[in-house]
């Protein structure tokens, strides 16, 4: 590297730092440090993969939704998850990585998706619990990310947050219906809360002291709040909702702390969390195998579309004038 290059690099870094310090966004064509680019790719890809894999646990209930209305809502929600994945892949590609490469990394297990989707959806109440708790936790994180430092990611988040509100509310409504129903329905709702509570509050990631990415991500303006701050926020807003439903959160240490103005809660089983992250959760293999299988099964569609386009090329395929 020549002296000129080093000077240029230092000047570019200085401008990058100044942009962040001013609270302005980094845009695709801006110079950015390579570790920032790689962190952004890793995070947005993981987020996109989560949306796509997240269709599986809920999709499991589409054919067995209790009413036609519930089924229509669930289909719309699962379709949103697919859409959210696509917004995020689109944002990720602005960092110079291809869609095919992102798919490949997911299929080869080189990029992750949220561990929450490695738990099974055993009853209809799980669809409610996912909307209420899992989407609720995701919103807490995503509202913060609407102000994240990478422009395309922040804009995708604004679009996603608008749509997520429907997801959480429909989930809460399912829980409310069950919680005010028969004894059997109430028990079903309680069982779903019992199974989804701890995985949901684990979604925010390891405690700040042990999080390898948090400090750098905060410095880069990617994260504006830490894992523990977001987790506390989610617990604080969810406990009164559970009380309203008359359901019991499965944590004997949960209680209001007048002094802190927050709920105290029990210790999370991080060994279980890491076990699932590493691939040994109840559904890890099933989720990835299903994703790979649908990718393979869809290859002929992608090939046929390309062949059709090649055959048609030469003809003007635009149907309407841009006006």
């Amino acid at each position, binding site marked *: 590297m020549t002296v000129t290059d080093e000077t240029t690099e230092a000047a570019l870094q200085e401008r990058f730092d100044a942009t962040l310090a001013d609270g302005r966004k980094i845009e695709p064509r801006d110079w950015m440090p390579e570790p920032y680019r790689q962190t952004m790719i890793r995070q947005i890809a993981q987020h996109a993969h989560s949306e796509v894999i997240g269709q599986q646990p809920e999709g499991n209930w589409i054919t067995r939704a209790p009413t036609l209305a519930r089924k229509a809502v669930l289909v719309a929600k699962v379709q949103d998850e697919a*859409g959210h994945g*696509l917004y995020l892949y689109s944002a990720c590609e602005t960092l110079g990585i291809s869609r095919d490469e992102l798919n490949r990394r997911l299929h080869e297990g080189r990029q992750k998706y949220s561990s929450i989707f490695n738990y099974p959806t055993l009853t209809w109440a799980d669809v409610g619990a996912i909307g209420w708790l899992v989407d609720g936790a995701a919103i807490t994180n995503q509202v913060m990310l609407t102000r994240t430092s990478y422009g395309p990611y922040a804009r995708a988040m604004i679009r996603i947050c608008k749509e997520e509100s429907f997801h959480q509310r429909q989930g809460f409504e399912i829980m409310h219906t069950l919680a005010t129903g028969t004894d059997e329905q109430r028990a079903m709702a309680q069982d779903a809360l019992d199974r989804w509570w701890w995985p949901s509050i684990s979604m925010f990631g390891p405690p700040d002291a042990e999080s390898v990415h948090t400090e750098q991500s905060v410095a880069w303006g990617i994260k504006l709040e830490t894992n523990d701050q977001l987790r506390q926020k989610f617990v604080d807003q969810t406990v009164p909702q559970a009380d309203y439903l008359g359901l019991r959160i499965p944590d004997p240490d949960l209680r209001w702390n007048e002094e802190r103005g927050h709920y105290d809660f029990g210790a999370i089983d991080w060994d279980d969390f890491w076990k699932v992250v590493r691939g040994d959760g109840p559904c890890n293999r099933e989720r990835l195998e299903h994703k790979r299988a649908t990718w393979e099964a869809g290859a002929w569609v992608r090939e046929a579309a390309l062949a059709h386009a090649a055959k048609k090329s030469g003809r003007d395929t635009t149907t309407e004038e841009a006006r």
Partner: protein
Amino acid sequence: MRASEQGWPLWEVFVRADRGLNHVHAGSVHAVDAETALQAARDVYTRRAEGVSIWVVRSTEIVASDPDRRDDWFGDLKPYRHPTFYEIPDAIGHM
């Protein structure tokens, strides 16, 4: 490389929210041709009737100014082009 991995071309999507408003960039989609790009853009970016019109443009067709030369392009501020540059006596009222 498999035939399906040639990669579908990338299209930038612009959505007009309502008559009288500009088309605004929403994101991008992959599609083999203009017609399917429009259909994909409708499904991905307007599930809640967010628009009355969609444009799709091949990403490679977009020519952009160099953000690193922003000052050359936009640095000439000329504050006297803004009405607030001129002081109007209170007695005159809103102008």
